[in-house]
Structure formats: structure tokens, C-alpha cells
């Protein structure tokens, strides 16, 4: 009897918990019924359902931010309230409000709340889209080229926030890229989409291309197997550095001007890495890569070379042997020359 009571209570509890979830889902569908159609509500109030649905904000439901909406909306004529970003993002917002940026742009100028994703779910180039809305690419390149060696390489490979951040730690994020086809009219590599990788993985999940044992974690051996697999010769891993924590204090810490912050062998901050897989919804999902083997991981990535950081100790030894070889003649011959010097005194 006691058992039956427990089951009954558990069932009731589940019902109570499930009601708001289903109501939330219903509300979003209701809202998107009108707001998902630009013709009906106009461009300003249009919500792109494809972009909104995969966001964390969508999981919370429309009412979380627009709590004044009633069942009679829009016939009730009531203005719809909006939550303030700082209600939830207090710390980040506080950091941002203290910067000069806050005088020029509010949160929604950079982050569309109906499309925004966390740092884990976006690629490096996508992180830069916010910046490039105001900062002209040529100006950025010119101002960096004044003092930064290989400015174009740094700017093309790193998100702006890698340096313009107060985050002390970094992680390495590897993206899968692929050779562009002739039909695409461009040479070089572009980020592979979910559909691109599905062509390689077939029935299986795209993660299985690298995570062979399906344990949701990539070992060094798996990474090497992927890099060496001739079937994936058109796929390359593209590594970049991303701040370990998201910060909105966009100043640059002094140590970032010291090249050896990154360009030295094995900085502690480069030990954590992830592989970023594209998702069906157009975002990215990170999978952890074997810890403490970051530099080894990068050695396994043919097109990733960071001067000073990814140096191979095997190559150092080979180089040293070659250089030492250059001293055999002076030392060996020189000794014999000294010992036989009398023979040449004529």
C-alpha cells in the first residue's frame, strides 16, 4: 500500500513538473504562429524560428522574458514587456557597462536575443561578426599591422575576444574544415557543415568520424587516426584559441602584448582542448579532447603550427645532431692538424 502511495505521489509530482514545460512549448508555438511570419508581423517583430529554436533562450520559453503577454495579445492593446539582459547576465553586463563600448552599443546591438548562442556553440568567425558590425576589417588589419607581426594571420585565425578579454585562461578549439570545391569558386578551406560531414559519416553520427569508440571524448589515438585516414584527406582540423571564460571586459591584458604568452612551449593555458562539431541546427557542439596532451594533439594536426609553441622535441634533437655534425671536421681534423704540424713546417 505504501508503495502504491509513493508511485501515486511520484506521478502527481511528474504531472506538476510537466505542466509548465508543455505550457511553455505551447506558448512558443503560439507566439511563432504569428511572429514566425514576417508578412504578418513585419520585419521588426519577426522571429526566425530556425535560428531561435536552438538557442538557450528558446528553451526558457517566450514568457520568461515577455511576461506581460496575455492570452488576448495582441487584441488587448497592452505593450509587451521585455526583460532586461542584466536581469540574468548581471556579471557580464556589469563588466560591459564599465567599458567604452557601452556608450556606443547596447546588448542587442551585438547579440540578437532570439539568435544568440553561448561561446561553445559558435565558431571563431561567428564570434567576430559582432565586432565587424562596427569595426571595419581594413582598419582593424591596418591598426594591428602597425605592431603585430603576421597581423593578417592572427586576425584570420583568432577571434577578436581571444586577446580583447580579461579571461586569464584559454582553451584550444579544433574545427573540422574542408577543401573548397571548384564549383564554390574559392580556393583553400572552409568550415565543414553538418551536411558536409554527414556525407562522410553516412548512417552514423558525424562525431563518429573522430570519436571512434563513441565515449563522447576524443583520445589522442582517435585524433591521429582521423588525421591519417586517407578517406578524410580533404578534411583538416583548424585550431584556434578561445578564452576559457566569457568576459565582456574588452580591454587587453598587458601580458597579451608579450608574444611568448602564446608562443612558448607548453603554456598551461593550452592544455585544455575541444573539438567543435557542427550541429544540424547550424550551431556547434564541443567534445573534449584528451587532457594534458594539447601540444601532442596539435602535432597530430598537419596544418597547425604555432611558432615557439608546437615545437617538436624530436626535431630539436635531430637539428642538434646535424649542427654537432658540423663540428666533427674542425675538431677531428683540427686535432690531427695540430699533432702533425711539424710535417708542414717547410
Amino acid at each position: 500500500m505504501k508503495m502504491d502511495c509513493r508511485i501515486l505521489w511520484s506521478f502527481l509530482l511528474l504531472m506538476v513538473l510537466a505542466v509548465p514545460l508543455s505550457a511553455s512549448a505551447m506558448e512558443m508555438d503560439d507566439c511563432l504562429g504569428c511572429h514566425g511570419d514576417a508578412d504578418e508581423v513585419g520585419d521588426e517583430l519577426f522571429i526566425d524560428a530556425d535560428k531561435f529554436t536552438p538557442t538557450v533562450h528558446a528553451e526558457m520559453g517566450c514568457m520568461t522574458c515577455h511576461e506581460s503577454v496575455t492570452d488576448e495579445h495582441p487584441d488587448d492593446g497592452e505593450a509587451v514587456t521585455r526583460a532586461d539582459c542584466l536581469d540574468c547576465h548581471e556579471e557580464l553586463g556589469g563588466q560591459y557597462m564599465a567599458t567604452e563600448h557601452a556608450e556606443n552599443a547596447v546588448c542587442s546591438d551585438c547579440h540578437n536575443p532570439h539568435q544568440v548562442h553561448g561561446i561553445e556553440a559558435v565558431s571563431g568567425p561567428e564570434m567576430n561578426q559582432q565586432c565587424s558590425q562596427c569595426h571595419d576589417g581594413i582598419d582593424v588589419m591596418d591598426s594591428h599591422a602597425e605592431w603585430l607581426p603576421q597581423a593578417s594571420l592572427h586576425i584570420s585565425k583568432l577571434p577578436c575576444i581571444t586577446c580583447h578579454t580579461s579571461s586569464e585562461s584559454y582553451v584550444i578549439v579544433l574545427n573540422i574544415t574542408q577543401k573548397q570545391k571548384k564549383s564554390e569558386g574559392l580556393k583553400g578551406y572552409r568550415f565543414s557543415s553538418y551536411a558536409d560531414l554527414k556525407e562522410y559519416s553516412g548512417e552514423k553520427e558525424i562525431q563518429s568520424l573522430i570519436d571512434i569508440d563513441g565515449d563522447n571524448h576524443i583520445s589522442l589515438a582517435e585524433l591521429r587516426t582521423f588525421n591519417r585516414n586517407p578517406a578524410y584527406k580533404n578534411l583538416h582540423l583548424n585550431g584556434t584559441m578561445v578564452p576559457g571564460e566569457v568576459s565582456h571586459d574588452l580591454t587587453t591584458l598587458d601580458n597579451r602584448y608579450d608574444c611568448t604568452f602564446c608562443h612558448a612551449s607548453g603554456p598551461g593555458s593550452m592544455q585544455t582542448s575541444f573539438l567543435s562539431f557542427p550541429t544540424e541546427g547550424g550551431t556547434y557542439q564541443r567534445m573534449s579532447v584528451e587532457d594534458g596532451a594539447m601540444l601532442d594533439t596539435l602535432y597530430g594536426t598537419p596544418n597547425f603550427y604555432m611558432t615557439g609553441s608546437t615545437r617538436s622535441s624530436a626535431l630539436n634533437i635531430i637539428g642538434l645532431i646535424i649542427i654537432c655534425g658540423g663540428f666533427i671536421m674542425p675538431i677531428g681534423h683540427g686535432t690531427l692538424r695540430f699533432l702533425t704540424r711539424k710535417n708542414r713546417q717547410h
Partner: protein
Amino acid sequence: MAEEHEHQIYLQPIPVRIWHWLNAFGIITLTVSGAQIRFPEYVSLLGSYKSAIYLHNAAGIIVSISFSLWFFYYTFVARSMANLYVPKVEDLKSGILRQVKFYFLTYFLGWDNPHHPSPDNKFNPMQKSVYLAIMFVMMPLVNLSGIFLINVDPLRGLIVMIGGLKLLAVLHILLACCLIAFLPTHVYLATLGRTPTDHIKTMWTGWEDEEEGHGEEQQDESKGEKASSGN
């Protein structure tokens, strides 16, 4: 002037000397800055990492341009590139062996060098073979790979085509190590003249003392060696 150089031959023309010393300082600069770029934790001779990179790039470009001028000068102006740097059949058949025998045996017995340099035949067969590898294979490759590494972003497509950035960097470093290894050997061999500074002075002034009576020795050592006719 004529009397001053009566017993001397003009072995190293000005363009060659300028090129040589430019190369020497350039390669030393590249070695030191390259070491700092690869081992910033241990080498900081040139100050900041950034200055090491700028200096390495500048020295690399100067050495590359100087290499191109050297190539142009010997091929099109002096027109002696093939004659000086490409070993002849004779050199390969007996010349190298004779020179090896001299350096590693008869030199210690006090015999004279079987090769007598002339403006048309500056290098002994061993030198020719080594310089052929250095000047026609290693230098162009190290210069080219360096130019690629300076322009990684604009040349990304080409770099991927030749096997990736990592392969390029490894090639650059290994070639650089080979060239660095050549330096002590080169400097040491330069002291094997009649006096230890003889050859070094020649590379500074252009003039080398003519060796006396080498004609007879040469007949004993190498019948028919072309070098004798030039002296």
C-alpha cells in the same frame, strides 16, 4: 698597383665579396634570431620575441635578395656558374677522391693541396660538390620556405598543396640546421691556406697569393687536372 699584385691572382671580384659578407652576417643573424623564435624561454639575446621575428624576416629577405643577385651575377654577368659550381666528369671520377685523400691523409704528411684555385676554377672538386648542394638545393629551399612562412595567410592554398604548414616549418628548420652545421666546417676549412688567415684575407681583398712551383707538384698529383692551366 700592378707591382703590388705581381705574385697574386684576383680570385674574388667585388660583387662576390659583398655577397659573401652580406650572407655571412645575414646567416649569423638568422641563426641567433631563429634560435630565439624557436626557444623563446631560453634565448632572449635580441630582446622581445617580436624584434626577433622582425629581424629574422628582414635578414631572411636580405639573404634571399642577395642569393638572387649572386645567381644573376654568376649566370648572366660572369657567365661562369656552370664552370665554377657544377662538378665535371673528371671531378667526379677522380677529383673528389684526390681531394678527400689530401684533406684526410696527405695534408697531415705535409703535402700541398692538389687543387690550385684560379678565377675560372675557384673550387676544388669537393668544394664544388658541397656548394652545389648548398647553393642549388639548400639555399633556394630555405629561402623559399622562409618566404612562405612570412606569408602564411596569403599563400595558405599553396602551403596546403605542398603538404601543410607543419611540413614547411620542419623543412625550413632542418635545412637551417644543415646550413648552420656547414658554418664551423666552412670557417675551419678557410684556415687551411698557407697561413690560417690567407683565405679569409682573400675574401676581404679579392687577391690571393700565387703559389710557387705548384705546376710540378700538380703533374705528380693529378695528370691533366684543368686547374694547373689557369695558374
